[in-house]
């Protein structure tokens, strides 16, 4: 087991380095330059040269990469845009993003699995077909469009603000009211972020369940006299959930992508919105660092999924 862990971690490290190099190439080769975007065209070439020097933009691209890496680890990496340390900028926002994504993930799993199991118990019934229809709808509706619609509707209907972490005016509110306000502001973007995941995962659970109930061991379980419920929720579900564990790892990149859009729409002060603004400003240090953090999160997610899989499936033993 220890050897397996060591090997896996080493693998993750190499993957991570590969990802960061690729990202670096793509980002720096994309059209547009950080200086042209921030500076007035009338500024003298001398100052521009000076700035390029400051930003290491005069150096070859591979050197730029290593300089970025070095600065990242020595804490000397500064944003092009406002000169603040990148890690500081990220640190003050990352918890908001993690909270949003955690809630979205919880919503996805706690709704999608029961929905999938429910559908699989009555395949091709009216309710199952309704579920299929809903899932296609959920997968095909653009998130940002739905988000704007929901924002409009809630503000019109309830006249209550939905943007940001919390309402602006909270003076005079009691503590429970403040907590409720925070939850309200969190739930809306998280739910919309979760829609794609719910749609996909519930269908996946359904087909996994339908596959499992055809297996011989389900017939064996019935032949013992176990009730339909025990057969279904103990013998079948446990097996049907195995492939879903691996999906957990794949969920994270989708959520991070969703974060960028939803945080921008909902004015949520997280790193998704920061990334969006940084990309527009060609703020390479910020973009790169956020990308790297996302990659780390994704890889950790996959790693956890692997470990969970090993715990859940006795046939898998890591060596």
């Amino acid at each position, binding site marked *: 087991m220890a050897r397996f862990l060591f090997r896996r971690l080493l693998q993750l490290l190499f993957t991570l380095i590969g990802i960061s190099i690729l990202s670096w190439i793509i980002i720096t080769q994309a059209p547009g330059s950080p200086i042209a975007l921030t500076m007035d065209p009338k500024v003298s070439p001398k100052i521009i040269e000076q700035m390029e020097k400051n930003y290491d933009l005069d150096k070859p691209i591979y050197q730029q990469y290593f300089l970025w890496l070095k600065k990242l680890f020595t804490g000397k990496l500064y944003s092009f845009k406002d000169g603040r340390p990148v890690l500081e900028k990220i640190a003050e926002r990352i918890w908001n993003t993690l909270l949003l994504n955690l809630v979205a993930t919880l919503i996805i799993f706690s709704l999608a699995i029961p929905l999938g199991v429910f559908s699989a118990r009555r395949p091709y019934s009216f309710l199952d077909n309704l579920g299929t229809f809903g899932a296609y709808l959920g997968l095909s509706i653009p998130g940002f469009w739905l988000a704007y619609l929901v924002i409009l509707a809630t503000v019109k209907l309830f006249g209550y603000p939905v943007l940001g972490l919390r309402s602006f005016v909270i003076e005079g509110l009691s503590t429970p009211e403040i907590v409720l306000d925070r939850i309200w502001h969190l739930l809306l973007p998280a739910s919309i972020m979760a829609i794609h995941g719910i749609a996909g995962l519930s269908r996946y659970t359904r087909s996994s369940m339908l596959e499992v109930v055809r297996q011989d061991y389900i*017939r064996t*379980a019935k032949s013992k006299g176990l009730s339909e419920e025990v057969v279904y929720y103990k013998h079948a579900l446990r097996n049907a959930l195995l492939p879903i564990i691996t999906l957990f790892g794949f969920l994270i990149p989708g959520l991070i992508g969703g974060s960028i859009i939803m945080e921008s729409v909902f004015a949520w002060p997280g790193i998704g919105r920061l990334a969006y603004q940084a990309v527009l400003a060609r703020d390479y240090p910020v973009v790169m660092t956020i990308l790297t953090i996302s990659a780390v999160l994704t890889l950790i997610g996959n790693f956890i999924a692997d470990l969970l899989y090993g715990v859940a499936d006795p046939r898998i033993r890591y060596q």
Partner: protein
Amino acid sequence: MRHPLLEVRSLTTHFFTEDGIVRAVEDVSFEIYPGEILCLVGESGCGKSVTGLSILKLIPIPPGQIVRGEILFNGRDLLKLSEKEMEGVRGNEISMIFQEPMTSLNPVFTIGDQIMEAIQLHQKLNKRDARKKAIEMLDRVKIPSPEKRIDSYPHQLSGGMRQRAMIAMALSCQPKLLIADEPTTALDVTIQAEVLRLLREIQREMEMSVMLITHDLGVVSEVGDRVAVMYAGRIVEYGPIEDIFHEMRHPYTRGLLESIPQLEVKKTRLNAIPGQVPNPLNLPEGCKFHPRCPLRIEDCRREEPPLFEVKEGHYSRCLRWKECR
């Protein structure tokens, strides 16, 4: 006169598929007496498994449906029982074991868990006593060091051990009837014989009845008391084992017997029955066997023959049973 433990009367099970109605079991009747082994034999697809599954009402519905018939177990018609009442019969009074020991056990639970489940359910034992009982059962089916093996997962056991675990599970509540659906087909030949001997031994000890489904007449001759030969969903010959082996009265049974490779007699050619098993969606008119039958006459095409009583307890579904020997 002895009373039968199980009486199957005119059982008819169909599958309503997109391609049409599969008449898997058609008007099948037989009985099983206490303490005997009844063998159900026939080629692949003739409806043996569906007959076995119908008794426990384990047919997938839809597409399957038991269209007609009665299944009297100790005089009680199982087909009239509710699903809840059937749960009390399954694994308790009637158990079933299946062909594939590889896929018939749940891969994510230990064999101990899977055996204890039935014991706890039907015998209302607590966990500790159920575990003791499960170890006892594993010991009884001759699994070495059962107190260790009980915590093994199915994939950690060999095929033969898995089938023993299946048998332990099926017998853990002392059922009166065991339906064994090709219990040894998937095993190595040497292990087949061992498992078969074990089944026979336990069957005698527990005075249990067994319905043994097989396509291996060698197995039948070793353990069977009576035989029902099936063809295309029907019973074509039915009787005590000596009669079937030595005085068969149906050309299909004869064909089956002649197709056994007999090592001692040094037969060089394997006498397979010519022709093919009919398509279950499109069965021939009249006797279902007539297209392949060496004895067929014009009348065979016209009407399905009834079961003729050849002598007491021996039946044949052949118009020319007198000429067939």
